[in-house]
């Protein structure tokens, strides 16, 4: 006959073993999944279908197309995660078979967000998109569709990186808008929140 203490100890052992097992399973599962999801550069796996992002879209997918002031086209792409290899984008015009290469870079601090910069393409034109591994030029994803929207800037302005930004004299003009919440920040800063928390939103639950 087991004593109460022995029974309790056994229960504790079971509980401890369960925690440990659960943790180990989680970790092993995560490891296996992350390995299996990672497209290996030299691995022959089915190529993903590339399309516009939607709520249930498979990644990688294309978020948007836009233009910078130099007339370059930016292609905004969401990838599955940090394990997705570095890549470049190749866009082929179906009609003329002309190819354009777009260099891609990850957004700093956000491994799923990548954008590629290159030649501007026309809206509505039939295009073949290919995401290609930078390591060994293997195809990671491809899709054929037209650009349905391209955000356009006003074209005349070039960006200045010299640090000589246009500025006005502090004495220029009078402050005509009252009251305005203009709170210039002498150093990089965020609008100071209220105590003791930077409180919360107007919309509660949509």
């Amino acid at each position, binding site marked *: 006959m087991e004593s109460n203490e022995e029974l309790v100890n056994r229960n504790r052992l079971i509980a401890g073993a369960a925690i440990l097992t659960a943790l180990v399973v989680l970790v092993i599962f995560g490891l296996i999944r992350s390995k299996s999801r990672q497209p290996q550069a030299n691995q022959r796996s089915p190529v993903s279908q590339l399309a516009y992002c939607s709520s249930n879209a498979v990644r990688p997918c294309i978020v948007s197309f836009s233009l910078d002031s130099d007339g370059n086209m930016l292609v905004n792409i969401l990838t599955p995660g940090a394990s997705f290899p570095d890549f470049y984008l190749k866009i082929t015009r179906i009609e003329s078979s002309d190819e354009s290469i777009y260099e891609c870079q990850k957004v700093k601090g956000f491994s799923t967000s990548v954008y590629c910069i290159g030649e501007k393409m026309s809206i509505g034109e039939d295009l073949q998109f290919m995401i290609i591994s930078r390591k060994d030029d293997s195809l990671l994803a491809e899709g054929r569709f037209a650009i349905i929207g391209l955000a356009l800037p006003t074209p005349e302005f070039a*960006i200045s990186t010299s640090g000589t930004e246009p500025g006005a004299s502090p004495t*220029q003009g009078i402050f005509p808008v009252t009251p305005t919440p203009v709170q210039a920040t002498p150093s990089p800063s965020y609008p100071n929140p209220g105590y003791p928390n930077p*409180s919360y939103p107007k919309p509660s*639950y949509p």
Partner: protein
Amino acid sequence: MNVLPDGLSVLADHWRLVSGILVIVLLSQFLVYSAIKLIFGSGLTSGEYYSLAISGWMLPASFLSLLWFLWETIRAPLFFTLVISIIVFVVMLFFRIEKGVAPDPKAVALGLLFLFCISVILRLAFVSKALIPFYFDSAQHYLTIKNLVEGTGASSVAGSFKWPVAGYYHLGFHLVAGFVASAMRVEITDAMLVLGQMILVVTPISSFFILRHETGSNSAGLFVVMLSAFGWYMPAYAVNWGKYPALASLALIQFALSIAYLSLQGRNILSLRKSCGVYAILGAGILTSGFTHSRSLVIFGIAALAWVGASWWQNLPRRIRVFIFYLIITGIILEIVLIQSQDVFGPLFDPYIQKGYLVTAGILFLSIFAQRACPHLAFPGILSIFLLLGSLFVPVVVPGYGNLTLLDRPFVEMILYLPLSLLGGLGLAGLEQKLQHAQGKLGNLHFMWGKHAGLLAIGLVLINAYFQYNLYPSDCCAIVSADDLVAMDWMDKNLPPDARILIASTELRVLATGSFQGYVSGDAGAWITPLTDRATFPLPYDSDFTQQNILDVLCTMDATHIYVGGTFEAFDASQLKTRPDWYGSLLSMPKAEIYQVVGCN
């Protein structure tokens, strides 16, 4: 149902981070368990120990994170010695603690453990749809964590210490998140998102202890856990608002209240040494809770007032007791009417009435049994609801922060679940007792109902959650789109470091007075400074950029660029486009635009 695949997918992507956080939680839990086990021995059941220990996990975790910060910042050998001492202490505790616990069905602790593991997967599904932590609060938290992490690496002067944020700010969550990000070598945004979800996993389990210990009913305890987790969309919904410190304090509040409850219960039983131990844990719990979220101190005040008030109330003659009880109920009704009549408080009852009326109605029904079976706990619960709502109207002046009220609407909205779920649990225990007492009179059928009332109640909560509960982010608060992230990265690489960027803002009003509390970003502009280190300054989102006076303001403030996000409360880009002589477009994306101010020359 995509929740499980999505949760597992996040686990696959962030397995190192999740495992790291779980190790921290479990180690902290073991430390707390060891401390309370030394005091209470076999006086608590395994389920109670599990719940109480996990509710206090932030206490050792915050302490360890603080040590990490001080050690990294000051690099004093003393802190290294302290860390080693803690590890040695843990090992010693493991061999010293008494092994026995109060007899209890083993399935309960295992059930809580199972719930914990399942909740980890379910809650991680949220992260699968999140690019970045939500709302403008998160940007502030990110910046604070970033300052902490960078502060530790940047400091080279031994023995120097600099507070990482200007002015006072509660740093508990930020320290732990910074420690996690630093130790796991992950991005701060990922650490915030995953840690936030892990906090949501732990918080409901914290509610089990007090119910189980008071009523002896495991099913009532588990019912409260289910209510806290899935009964209403609060408190979990607050991650959409980026209320990480407030969320992190919820488990700590319950931990400290549970320890306070145990100290009251054991005041005539525990030895002086053990009593001192209880008070030390209680003090540490309250301190850590205040350090995690300052307003939790108000909650302790409310709990103390409710407890003292209830003790006084219980000793009154029955007629006066009934009168005061109905007076409090009337007071709550009047408060509800008053709150509903004020725009600024409008959404306070959304989680409990508009979206959670079925569960709330069930709680109201169960409250009758709670008041009959456990008036010494049910009445403080009702009184605390009255005080929580009332605290919205109590003005306080905090030097440097102006006129405030004891609590603000969002915090009351997110913590109201606590007294409600406790009332529900007490009520269920009362109902179970009632049905079991009726066994003699009414036969076996009613005995069976008494035994299974808990299962039925838990089942109803889960069925309601299946149809109502949303584990994914709400659209309300995603102020940053994928375009915004690219635009900010583009700014980081292309704009000069001394660029001064105008961002859209909206007024913050959450107090009863409706008074203006400052400007907060209405779009992704909130993240520009945290992510790019460029200076920003706010202007109302509805400013008219076709007007000369607005250009004059920008010129006076030396604004060099304007950021236009993709939310409703962003600047109107069409106005900027009409004045290309004043504002030149640098980058135009569907949901993010950057303009250069060129009209000042």
